[in-house]
C-alpha cells in the first residue's frame, strides 16, 4: 500500500474521531415545555435514567418554578428538590420530585402496590391531571409515602438478577449441558474428519 494511501486513511480517521465529539454541541436542542407538570416529570425521569445530567434537570426545575402553568405540581417541593440537588443529594431530590407530582391523597388501592405503581408510571397522556398533594413529603400520611416509594421504584430500570433459585440453577445446568454436549459432538466430528 502506498504511503499516500496510508496517510489518507490516517487523516480520514483522525478527522472523523476529532470531528465527532465537537459535533455533539452542534445538535439542536428544542424548546422546553411550558407546563410545570411535564417539566418536573422530565426532570424526575432524567435523574432516574442518568443522574449525571444535573444541568438539564436544574434547567427544567427552574423553568417549572417560573412556569405560568403550575397545575398539578407542588412547587415548594420542587424548590426543595433544587436545593437538595445543589448538595448533590440525587436520591432525596428524586423523592421530592416524585412527591411533587403525586396525585392528591394517593393511597394504596385494595389490590396492592402493582396497580398504584402502574398508574403512577403511566405516560403523561394516560393519567388525568391531579391536584397538588396537600402536604409536604415529610408530613405525608404513610399511604402517600408508600405510594412515593412505589412510584420511585417504578421510575427506575427494572434490573433482574440471577438469584440462584432452584429453577434458575436447573436452567443454567441445562444450558451448560447443552454447550458441553454440543461441543463434544462437534469435536468428535472434527476428529473423524481429520485424515
Amino acid at each position, binding site marked *: 500500500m502506498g504511503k499516500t494511501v496510508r496517510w489518507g486513511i490516517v487523516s480520514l480517521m483522525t478527522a472523523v474521531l476529532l470531528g465527532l465529539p465537537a459535533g455533539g454541541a452542534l445538535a*439542536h436542542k428544542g424548546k422546553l415545555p411550558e407546563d410545570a407538570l411535564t417539566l418536573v416529570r422530565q426532570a424526575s425521569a432524567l435523574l432516574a435514567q442518568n443522574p449525571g445530567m444535573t444541568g438539564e434537570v436544574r434547567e427544567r426545575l427552574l423553568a417549572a418554578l417560573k412556569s405560568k402553568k403550575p397545575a398539578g405540581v407542588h412547587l415548594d417541593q420542587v424548590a426543595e428538590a433544587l436545593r437538595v440537588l445543589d448538595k448533590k443529594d440525587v436520591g432525596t431530590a428524586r423523592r421530592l420530585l416524585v412527591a411533587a407530582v403525586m396525585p392528591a391523597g394517593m393511597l394504596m388501592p385494595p389490590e396492592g402496590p402493582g396497580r398504584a405503581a402502574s398508574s403512577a408510571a403511566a405516560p403523561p397522556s394516560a393519567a388525568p391531571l391531579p391536584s397538588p398533594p396537600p402536604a409536604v413529603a415529610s408530613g405525608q400520611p404513610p399511604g402517600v409515602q408508600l405510594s412515593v416509594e412505589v412510584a420511585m421504584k417504578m421510575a427506575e*430500570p427494572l434490573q433482574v438478577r440471577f438469584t440462584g433459585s432452584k429453577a434458575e440453577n436447573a436452567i443454567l445446568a441445562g444450558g451448560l449441558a447443552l454447550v458441553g454436549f454440543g461441543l463434544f459432538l462437534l469435536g468428535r466430528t472434527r476428529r473423524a474428519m481429520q485424515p
Partner: protein
Amino acid sequence: MSTWNGVWQALDERLKLSDFTYPVPRHANTVAYSLGGISLIGFIVLIVSGILLAQYYNPVPQLANDSVRAITQVVHFARILRGIHYWAAQVVMVTVLLHMFRIFITGSFKKPREANWIIGVGLLAVTVGLFFTGTVLKWDQEGFEALEHNIAIGHLLGGLGHWFTPAFTEHVPLLVRLYIAHINILPGILLLLLAGHFWLIKKHGISARPGQPVAEMLPFTAHLKHLGKYALVFMGIVLILAVLRPPAVGPAPVEGIEVTKPPWPFLPLFAVENWVGVPGLFWASVILFLLLLLVPFVDRSPHAVWRRRPLFITLGFLLLVVLVGLGLLAWLTPGAVHVGG
C-alpha cells in the same frame, strides 16, 4: 428391515426426503461456512420465543411497559423466555454480520452469486429492522426515543415516510403498528428472502474455499446434522446468558427528553447523528447499504483469494474500522440531543 428403516422408507416415498441428500463440500461444516446456518437456528429460536412472548405482551402504549415488567417479574418463566429472545437477537446480529464478513473475505459474492449477495443485504436490512422494532416494543425510555427517531426519519422522507409517523392513522397507535411490523410484516419478508437465499444456494452450490480444491463431498443431510450440533451450543449459550444476565427494562417513558443511547448495532450511526443530526443518521444508513449493494458490481475480478484483491479488502477493512471506531466513540462520549429535549 428395522422399524426405523421402514418408517423412513414410508416417509421418503411420500415426502421425497432423500432429495435432501444432495452433495455439499465438506468445508460447509466449518464454523466460518456454518455462520448462515447458525443465524437460521437463531431466527427459529427467535420466532418460537417471540410467539410465546406475544401471549403476554400488550402493545397498547399505556400498557406496553407494564406488560414487559409483568413478563419480567410476574409470569412464571417469562423472564427466562424474554432473556432467550433478547440474547438470541444479540447472537443472531453478530452471526449475520460475521457471515457477511466471511462472504466478503472469501469472495463468495462473485459471479454467479451476485443476486444472492443482494438478497443477503436485504436480509441484513430486515434483521436490523427486527432489532430496531424489538427495541421500541419495550416501551421504556430507550424504546420511546428509538420511536421518536423513527418518526423524525418518517418526517424527513415526506410522503414516503408517512407510514412511519403517527399521522398515518389516528385510530391505531404507532407502537401497535411497529409491533405488527415486528411480528408479522418483517418476519414475512424475512421468510421470503430466506427462501430465495436458500434456493440460490441450492442452485449455485456452497462456494468453494478460495485457492483450495474441493476435496470431498458430504450429503446435505450430514451438514444439517452438523448444524444441529451448533444449535445445541447456540441454545446452551443463550440459556446461560438468559439466566445469568437477564435483560433489564427501563421505566415507562417520559416525552420530551433524550437521555439514552441506542443498542450496540446502531452506535456507529448514533455517532454520525451526534455530528449532523437526524438527516445524518438516515443518509449514513442509506450510504452504508448502498455500499454493501455495490460490492459485487465493483469487485468484479475473477479472484476470490483475499491476497489478490488488495484494494477491496483494504476498503472493506477501512469501513469496518470506521464503523467500530464510530461505535466506540458513541459508546464512550455523551450523546447529543436530536429529537427530544
